[in-house]
């Protein structure tokens, strides 16, 4: 058991060590201050948050229906909405173009009637990210709802609590851990999003070029810039893990 386990650790940690070994530590602050890098970091701050909010707004009601609803084809719906998790993100981007692009099924109408066009906009980045990350939220929240069951809600109702009271005092508090976990997974997936964003929203510094896109483009000709940006993503991911760990400890005790 131990040798393969050690191999697994080495396998997962060595690439990160390789990254760290190649960081140009002396120029790092100058590189982080270039406009392109700052734009990318800013977009990587707001776009995953936007995607997560979008996922919460649409995904939580769906998770609720999947967990509690009794309707035909529920399993099919669950399978379909989780498909973006296995779909190559690039394919997701193309699919988004054919749905919400200017010539797309819905996008055509929106563009003609209202002049709305999602590609090449920051909101388009959020949409592309939400497409690939929402399933993580839906499945996590659904599992949470299923697990909490209806016992407490029923108990509250028998004790005379109104529907609003039950929602506020029982349902939402019991939902919040799974919502937190789901939102975190969703955010993390959105942070790393590359393929769907590049294909659907495009690549322009300041508007659609998030950090992963900047890394991808920089890799072609400026590997050093790519390393610096990767380091930032690495540090942010690590920080999120540590924060989560802290929360879990608190929750456990």
């Amino acid at each position, binding site marked *: 058991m131990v040798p393969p386990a050690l191999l697994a650790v080495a396998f997962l940690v060595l690439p990160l060590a390789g990254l760290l070994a190649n960081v140009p530590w002396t120029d790092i602050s100058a590189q982080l201050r270039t406009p392109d890098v700052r734009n990318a970091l800013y977009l990587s701050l707001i776009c995953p948050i936007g995607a997560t909010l979008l996922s919460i707004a649409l995904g939580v009601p769906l998770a609720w229906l999947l967990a509690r609803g009794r309707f035909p084809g529920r*399993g099919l719906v669950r399978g379909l909405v989780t498909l973006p998790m296995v779909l190559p993100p690039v394919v997701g981007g193309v699919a988004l173009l054919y749905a919400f692009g200017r010539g797309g099924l819905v996008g055509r109408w929106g563009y003609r009637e209202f002049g709305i066009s999602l590609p*090449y906009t920051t909101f388009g980045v959020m949409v592309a990210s939400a497409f690939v990350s929402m399933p993580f939220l839906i499945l996590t929240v659904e599992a*949470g709802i299923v697990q909490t069951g209806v016992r407490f809600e029923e108990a509250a109702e028998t004790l005379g609590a109104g529907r609003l009271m039950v929602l506020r005092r029982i349902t939402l508090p019991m939902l919040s*851990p799974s919502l937190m976990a789901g939102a975190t997974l969703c955010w993390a997936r959105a942070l790393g999003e590359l393929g769907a964003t590049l294909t659907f929203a495009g690549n322009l510094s300041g508007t659609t070029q998030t950090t992963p896109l900047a890394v991808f483009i920089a890799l*072609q*000709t400026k590997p050093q810039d790519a390393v610096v940006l990767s380091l930032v993503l690495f540090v942010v991911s690590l920080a999120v893990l540590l924060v989560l760990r802290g929360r879990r400890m608190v929750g456990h005790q």
Partner: protein
Amino acid sequence: MTVRGILRRSAPLLASGSALALVLTACGSSGGSDGAEASTAPSTSPAMAAPSAMASMGGHGMSMPAASAAPGSIIVLAPGTLATALPLVDKAFLKAHPESPVSPNFGHSPAQVIQLQQGSPGDAFLAVGVESMTQAKNAGLLAGDPTVFAHNRLEIVVPAGNSKKITSLADLGKPGVTTILGDESTPVGLYAKQALAKAGVTVKPASKEEGSPSVVQRVVTGNADAGIAFATDLKGNSKVTGIDIPDAEQMPAAYSAAVLKGAKHADAAREFVSFLTTPSVQNQLRQLGFLIP
């Protein structure tokens, strides 16, 4: 329940990369009662959320060194604009040299120079633009001088019908025209930038794509009014029309080939490079829209 509890139950499935199993699980519960399969996941693996974000990076259009080439095959590094032409050339080459199959590896020429510098294997290097080939030469990667075997021209690509009535580079700078360029890290972006500078036109692109085919694709899917791409990437595509950019405003991109110093099959690679300038190959390239010197 706690965040820990939820993560412990759901994250092993979500973060372990077995997304397929998860979807199957999700589908499988259609006949079940409560879809609680997700909660039966083993709780031994640590709940880690962020790696899924890291794992999703990359994997789009990046070319990896062709390490898995068949023994004896020539590894040819080539730009993406040759993706249609090269397989045809390879087929003809294989007929003449059955012992030397060609294993092409497509990517951006500037990126391939960097990959070669970092020790990627390769027998022959085919580059678009003199810059990358010069860079490879200066880095001491080449065995011998490069041979120019074709040229490519830039064209303005517009949707068939040209709804915005675009006739010249100057039209790309007009308000209301959604224009797509290549990123400057790619040959098509670099050449387009030079052409726009020569024409004295300032364009605010809606997106800077990672290659000439992607620029064309934006117009094909109806998401752009115009773009600047290599002529060979829109030839034969009925959904788009090419508009000429005069010689005064552009420099045709030269395609050159050279044998690499680190070649494992130097003789076969040399054969391949000279094969590119034989009349039959030149004719084939001309039919695909390349300019022949």
